[in-house]
């Protein structure tokens, strides 16, 4: 699954922090292009697969507010 997070809205340190916090639930790969951070999630626990990306996106957003 690939999540595209806009560089002007989501910051890199926050994404890294979120990945660190979610690392026990899945494996991540982060790349970037000119406009987006590309967060690829692999080996997601089967019971979490359905909403994983949305939950991760929400978590990153919650960290942005702090």
């Amino acid at each position: 699954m690939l999540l595209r997070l806009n560089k002007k809205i989501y910051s890199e340190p926050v994404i890294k922090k979120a990945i660190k916090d979610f690392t026990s639930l899945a494996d991540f790969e982060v790349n970037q292009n000119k406009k987006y951070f590309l967060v690829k999630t692999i080996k997601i626990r089967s019971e979490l697969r359905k909403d994983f990306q949305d939950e991760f996106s929400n978590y990153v957003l919650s960290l942005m507010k702090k």
Partner: protein
Amino acid sequence: MKNKINLKENQIVFFLNSKVYPLEAIYSASYVFLDRTYIYLDGDPAKKITIFLKGKEKLSNKQLKSLFGEFHNELLNYLLRTEIAKRNKQVRDFIVGTALVSSLPLAGLSSEDSKESYLDDPLGIVVPWEEKYGRKKTKKKVNKKK
């Protein structure tokens, strides 16, 4: 205000003008909705931000529209808060500054201050009255006899 409802995706998408709604206000308003919805932001914070609100539970068309309205109300709430915070910044800084200074122990202010005395005159400004104007002449009392 334009919005696009996608019932299949259980989602409503709309745009916000960043000049009216700064990114900070959008973050704050979004935070309130994180327990009910999945939120994804995109766009350019200098121009227009796209908000994707997706219900965690299945929502009807009416409920999605209501969510849209609630989100805007929350945005206005945070806009007002940030505006008041901006306006009162100086007063707040002054109050906190005064409180901090008044809580400092007096002895800790400066060790040199406590040693100085009004008798010290390193610049040689003090001139005794007698030196400047001479000794005061005492008037002789004359007893006039009537």
